[in-house]
């Protein structure tokens, strides 16, 4: 075990997976010479050479489309999108090809590619360095999506994604890239997709979150004298419905938290799941604390946009009153 930050754990996973499997390669803008703008890919170029750690032209659709072709040639590409909002040019390739090509081959050819990107707000950056685009990705058939909140999960989920036979997108919460620190198993380490993590047990209210919002929920649990169960979803697709439903059955009260805009965000899917499968367990409304349906704001007021301990607390109080 080593104590690593979240972004160091990502780097560790890449080193481990490239060493383990000669078919794995990393490509993206500035992933090579610079080792990535967050240094997530540091050391890969020197260690694995310029065939397996590739600085591509500045073209996200070409990058992801190129990765589709690399899969056809037997590679397992790990594509970095430099930032959340700069992944949008690749959505066309994602929706029309990455999510459909396995189906299109009658289920006969595999596209085991991984897309990873830093995401989320709160980092005092110019616009479009703050987005939480997971809903676009998770709504897309054929795609799997995972979001770690701890260094160990950042390593384990990325390893699972790289080994998975289907395309997987990993969103890494950049707000806690360097502040989330924790023990990370050395060498081979996989956290299977599809298993939520009960970050904290509790009995009165279930707080459901992922990414940097897990920490906000834990801080809320600390701050309140209400027994909160905090569930870190980790894997949005496949989704661990059982863990969620078991917690709701126990507490009967739910607050869902994410940074992304509210309308048709992933929180809506979680609320819909509960409204369908746990309606008779509920003792109150299913509440969401989310980003707003507005452009991500000027950074001096971004704290008013981001779900906070105050906002989550207010939702919890509404339920336990």
């Amino acid at each position, binding site marked *: 075990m080593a104590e690593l930050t979240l972004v160091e754990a990502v780097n560790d996973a890449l080193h481990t997976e490239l060493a383990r499997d000669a078919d794995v*390669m990393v490509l993206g803008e500035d992933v090579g010479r610079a080792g990535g703008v967050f240094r997530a890919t540091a050391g890969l170029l020197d260690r694995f050479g310029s*065939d397996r750690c590739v600085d*591509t*032209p500045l*073209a996200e*659709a*070409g*990058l*992801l*489309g*190129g*990765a*589709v*072709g*690399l*899969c*056809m*040639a*037997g*590679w397992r590409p790990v594509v970095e999108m430099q930032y959340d909002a700069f992944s949008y*040019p690749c959505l*066309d*390739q994602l929706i*029309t*090809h990455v999510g459909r*090509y*396995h*189906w*299109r*081959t*009658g*289920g*006969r*050819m*595999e596209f085991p590619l991984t897309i990873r990107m830093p995401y989320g707000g709160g980092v005092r950056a110019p616009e479009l360095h703050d987005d939480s685009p997971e809903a676009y990705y998770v709504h897309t*058939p*054929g795609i*799997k999506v995972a979001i770690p909140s701890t260094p160990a999960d950042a390593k384990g989920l990325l390893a699972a994604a790289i080994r*998975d*036979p*289907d395309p997987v997108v990993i969103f890494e919460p950049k707000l806690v890239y360097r502040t989330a620190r924790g023990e990370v198993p050395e060498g081979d380490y996989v956290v299977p997709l*599809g298993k939520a993590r009960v970050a904290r047990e509790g009995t009165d209210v279930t707080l459901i979150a992922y990414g940097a919002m897990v920490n906000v929920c834990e801080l809320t649990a600390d701050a309140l004298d209400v027994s909160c169960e905090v569930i870190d979803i980790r894997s949005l*697709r*496949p*989704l661990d*419905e059982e863990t969620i439903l078991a917690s709701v059955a126990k507490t009967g009260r739910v607050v869902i938290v994410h940074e992304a805009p509210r309308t048709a965000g992933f929180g809506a899917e979680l609320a819909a799941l509960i409204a369908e499968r746990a309606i008779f367990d509920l003792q109150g409304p299913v509440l969401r604390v989310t980003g707003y349906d507005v452009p991500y704001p000027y950074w001096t007021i971004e704290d008013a946009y981001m779900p906070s301990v105050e906002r989550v607390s207010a939702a919890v109080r509404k339920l336990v009153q």
Partner: protein
Amino acid sequence: MASTEALVTHGLAESDLLELYRRMVLLRTYDERSVVYHRQGRIGTYAIFWNHEAIQAGATFALSGDDWIFPSYRESAIGLVRGMPVETILQWWRGHPSGWWNPADWNVASIAVPIATHVPHAAGLAWGKKLRGLPTVAMAFFGDGATSEGAFHEGVNLAAVMNAPAVFVCNNNQWAISTPIEAQTRAETLADKAVGYGIPGVRVDGLDVLAVYAAAREAVERARSGGGPTLIEAVHYRAAPHATADDPRAYIDQARVEEERARECLGRYEDVLKNAGVLTVERAEAVRKEAEDLLRAGITAAEAEAPADPDLLFRNAYVDPPGNMRNG
């Protein structure tokens, strides 16, 4: 533009010339029969490639079987040149799951419906094979309209930068549905676009199968020997509707179309072969009959197939599907 004469004496044996003819006839027959099948309600909407056969047969003739082909919907039947069964392609147009093949079985990628988005795939495949030390070339087909898309730009640029062994064949039929080439680009030629990627651009008569072949062969050789990608512009004129659902009378000059139809590529090649003494009337008839028989057998086989199992909805979506995939 290259001339045919050079080619007849240049590298192609008589058997090659005839095989090329056979492929053109097969494609032509596939196309003509498909229009009929559509009218008869036996296949769905169909994208007609009548008079594009010289481009499709000529360019792919320069490939080896290990090389990959990336077709657009306009080249839906290009797998025929690799021996793909007629019924497979007919089933694609019939919306039957058995029309979807494994690209690795034929080294023919899936039919690309969204314009130009397969160009980066060809770049990636060519690059990926090169990284593995293999001599594979990737050849992508797309139209004149496709050159306006960002995906074309990004894909060709990627191939150029990676020095990937790719050949990009632009079927310039001068129309994108109802949009003429002048509304698509201000460039004098589409081959000119190669300059911006630092790769050779070649313009060729798209109705001259031997000229197309020659240009493709040069490009394939360059690619295979480490010289990187080439952009080939095969110029002709769309002499049929865009697809069975399209009525071009609203936007196209029918007189011009008739003129173009008179210059169609298959008859032209037939004349070349006959003048060179390579093709007899009987041989031509036999080739045509063989193709017609193949089509007849193909549609029969397609129609004989059992209806698709609706469970295929789910079976091909993921290798390892999420547990809730069947919820709806």
